């Protein structure tokens, strides 16, 4: 039992991204297919429906064995409402750039939320 607990320590890092992002991070060793045959990754291409991405994101959020969800920023843009609605610290949703789409800080959910705090009317009194 102790050995089993030791082997199962740690939580997963999941990824929703384009082909190269998924292939790369899976090469890095984060990929897993659990006993119920549920993968912790999703490859998104130009034909993937937005509803499917959103459904997968919500599924990853509900899974208690996932601590980090990586999502390409251009894909995150498609399901922005779902990402903005996620406020819990765990699983942490991290928007990452891809080879075709450089990182844009103005689109990042967390940075936008943080910037929103610096409302001049609130700060200068």
């Amino acid at each position, binding site marked *: 039992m102790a050995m089993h607990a030791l*082997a199962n*320590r740690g939580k997963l890092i999941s990824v929703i991204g384009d082909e190269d992002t998924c*292939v790369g991070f899976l090469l890095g*060793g984060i990929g897993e297919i659990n006993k119920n045959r549920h993968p912790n990754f999703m490859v998104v291409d130009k034909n993937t429906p937005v509803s499917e991405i959103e459904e997968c994101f919500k599924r990853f959020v509900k899974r208690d064995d996932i601590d*980090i969800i990586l999502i390409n920023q251009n894909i995150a843009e498609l399901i922005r409402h779902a990402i903005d609605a996620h406020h819990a*610290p765990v699983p942490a949703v*991290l928007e990452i750039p891809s080879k075709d789409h450089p990182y844009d800080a103005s689109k990042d959910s967390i940075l936008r939320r943080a910037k929103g705090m610096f409302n001049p009317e609130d700060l200068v009194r």
Partner: protein
Amino acid sequence: MTAQNEDVPSEAVACELLDKIIVKQLHLMEEKMRCELNIESNIKNGSIHLAKSRYIMGQSSVSTTRLPTESSSDFSASTKCETIEEDGLKVMKVIENDAEDTVNPLRWFGVLVPQNMHKAKSIFQNTINYVVECVNVQMQLQTNLKLIEMLKQYINSEKVTAA
């Protein structure tokens, strides 16, 4: 002034604390952008090696068709993350999973894979460290957001009472 009132921080103290947290927040925002740029350069670098492997092995040899699917046999991730407490803060760190059912991802792409594939693997392994570093910064940003909100509410309520 009663002893109970002395325990309650004054508006000035709360404002000072708010200033400190906001400065810290700005530093964290800068730190997050730095982490994201590190991730970006790593992903670009890794993608170049994947493209070179694709050139050597063929278009479909390095693609999603080689990745395991729901019908593949189950296996565990070799790299995971763990939450630990450091100086009263919850931080994540990368750990290697020593379970027996882990696989070598390079085997999905063949037995003899080009050197570029090995390079891409080590670059993406390194990227995971940057990812976890970025997540830690993001978690601190979220904690500070809650603190700022609470302090603002406190200062506003103090103002109302003073008026």
